């Protein structure tokens, strides 16, 4: 068995500490991270971690351009959503600004049959699943609570209570095993998204215990964006988050979360390990939330401008653009076309968001139970009669 290769089935692999020998770019956190594309747009080809695993990507020019297109598109749609919120058309928006590479890389690493459990910020993953980007806007506009079919889209509902979804992902992954859908290259895998703040939640730690004990076919994808609203990482942990995995008995690895290629390569490998029966992996995507926590937040109260500036130099999109230009596989026309296409998508999104009708008030009584409840039914009827009693009521 070659170094770094993992055998399907049998005992889970020994925990790796995910340390990286090389620290490309010189700007990685202590202990390093997996990086394949530097902030300057230099493609490193491959990187080998301390446990001997080698990560590499080798895409066609068209595929590299595709990554760029997705990154630009999800940022543009996000900007449109922020604008819609500022204009009073959304009640709130949780921006992904700065986290595009973590989301597009991991989102593209998912295979068709894989299942994702997002927080409320994974708009980029949603987009990469081929889902209409308008899907979560009902939630943010306040016309519903999400309302989509997790199984149809292989993308669970946005979960707002921090960390709760990691247990759902783990249970779902146990079900994958029980269905006999692991242990082969076309098996299924599950990915759970969460942030640095969530790692303090008991439920996230319980999900680590469960996933380890049951060898669940899943990837814990932590976007460490350095802040849980206002609280910095130091308030959540004494050790780098990826190293937590060792205590639960599965591999943990840190990646440059602003490097879409590293995000893709490491997530794809971890998902494939999971589907092959080798159990869970924790990936810490080291990134930065460039915007506010949500549109209701004011980050100037808790972080300094120079910090934000230093992260701008590590922008996840600029480095892909630099790489494409350096490789001469994309020209000004291409970049302009991508911008224009994204702008049109954003405009289309805006128009459809503005056209979202408010729900009929009586629909608030819908879908409380799969089987009806006489109490809810009676209240719905009383509600209807009360409103109908007003002259000229539309009810």
């Amino acid at each position, binding site marked *: 068995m070659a170094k770094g290769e993992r055998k399907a089935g049998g005992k889970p692999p020994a925990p790796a500490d995910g340390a990286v020998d090389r620290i490309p770019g010189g700007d990685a956190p202590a202990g390093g991270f997996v990086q394949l594309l530097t902030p300057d747009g230099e493609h490193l080809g491959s990187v080998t971690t301390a446990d001997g695993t080698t990560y590499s990507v080798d895409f066609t020019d068209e595929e590299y351009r595709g990554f760029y297109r997705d990154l630009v598109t999800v940022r543009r749609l996000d900007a449109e959503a922020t604008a819609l919120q500022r204009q009073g058309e959304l009640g709130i928006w949780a921006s992904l600004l700065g986290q595009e590479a973590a989301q597009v890389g991991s989102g593209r690493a998912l295979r068709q049959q894989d299942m994702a459990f997002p927080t409320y910020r994974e708009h980029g993953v949603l987009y990469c699943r081929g889902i209409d980007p308008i899907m979560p806007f009902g939630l943010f506009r306040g016309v519903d609570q999400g*309302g989509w079919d997790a199984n149809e889209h292989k993308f669970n*509902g946005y979960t707002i209570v921090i960390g709760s979804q990691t*247990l*759902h992902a783990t249970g*779902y992954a146990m079900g994958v095993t029980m269905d006999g859908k692991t242990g082969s290259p076309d098996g299924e895998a599950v990915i759970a998204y969460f942030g640095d703040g969530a790692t303090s939640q008991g*439920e996230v730690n319980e999900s680590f215990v*469960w996933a380890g004990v049951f060898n669940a076919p899943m990837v814990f994808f932590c976007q460490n964006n350095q802040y849980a609203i206002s609280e910095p990482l130091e308030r959540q942990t004494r050790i780098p988050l990826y190293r937590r995995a060792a205590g639960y008995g599965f591999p943990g690895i840190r990646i440059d979360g602003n490097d879409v290629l590293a995000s893709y390569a490491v997530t794809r490998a971890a998902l494939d390990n999971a589907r092959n029966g080798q159990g869970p992996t924790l990936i810490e995507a080291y990134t930065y939330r460039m915007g506010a926590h949500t549109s209701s937040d004011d980050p100037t109260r808790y972080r300094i401008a120079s910090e934000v500036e230093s992260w701008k130099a590590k922008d996840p999109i600029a480095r892909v653009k630099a790489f494409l230009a350096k490789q001469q596989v994309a020209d000004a026309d291409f970049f302009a076309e991508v911008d224009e296409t994204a702008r049109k998508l954003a405009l289309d999104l805006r128009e459809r968001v503005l056209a979202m009708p408010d729900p009929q008030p009586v629909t608030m009584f819908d*879908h*409380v*139970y799969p089987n009806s409840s006489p109490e809810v039914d009676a209240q719905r009827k009383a509600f209807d009669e009360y409103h109908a009693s007003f002259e000229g009521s539309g009810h």
Partner: protein
Amino acid sequence: MAETITLGKALNHGLRRALENDPKVVIMGEDVGKLGGVFRITDGLQKDFGEDRVIDTPLAEAGIIGTAVGLAIRGYRPVCEIQFDGFVFPAYNQIVAQVAKMFYRSKGKVRVPMVIRIPFGGGIGAVEHHSESPEAYFSHTPGLKVVSCANPADAYTMIQQAINSDDPVVFFEPKRRYWEKGEVELEAPLSGAYPLHAARVLRPGTDATLLAYGPMVRVALDAAAAAAEDGRNLEVIDLRTLSPVDYPAIFESVRRTGRAVVVHEAPGNLGIGAELAARITEECFYSLEAPVLRVTGYDIPYPAARVEEDFLPDLDRVLDAVDRSFGW
């Protein structure tokens, strides 16, 4: 043919039948496998159905319920055991914020057909956290259905009906009645069984209505037998379903008798009895001869075992309330 078995054994038979009838049913909880549960409700099931269907979980209640949600999304029908009433609270977030809301949040597209079994109530001489009655917390939560069985026959059918239901059901088991025996028709088809969400008149009467559920049903029946010696003919209703409450059955009875006494172990303040009193007053005002009275646990933490008999409603306290109702 009817067999005479304990309430605990009736639950065991019901779970067994559910596992036999639907390969998607899985049982999960602490010590439910080899040990068969601390009350032996799952006794022998792992041996017969395997470790994938009767799952000994890590010791973490949020984990039990949270992973069950994921299994339910995947298409399974998890039956979760919470070992004791007082241990459900680590799972409270998952039950109230996730289990109860998944169907609503998804506009009816995601179902989580789960059963959460909770042995509840006191009277077994236990230490703290082993004798509580947390049913009101869950009955207050839209999206959950809440039931409680009081005898072996109901235990057998209700656990199967709860598992078959696509609604998430919190299933309260009267732990101090686990060893009480009764006749159970083990071969009877479930389709002909009494509905899950319906109250049942266990003793017809004319003078007052006693309303109880779970462990207090036995107390209410004993009180009615004692009252009969004084010439009072009390009707006893086993509520069986706490969310939704079967109000039509209750209103029909109270309109006939003109008096209602609610009995439960849980503290009275904002409990099931408070809601019943309010609703009966709203709906049966002109039939009432006296206010709806409550006989409940006191508004204190569950006390030490040596004094629990003074905390729990008993026959004398129920009869005292009946006297007060008649003296109004």
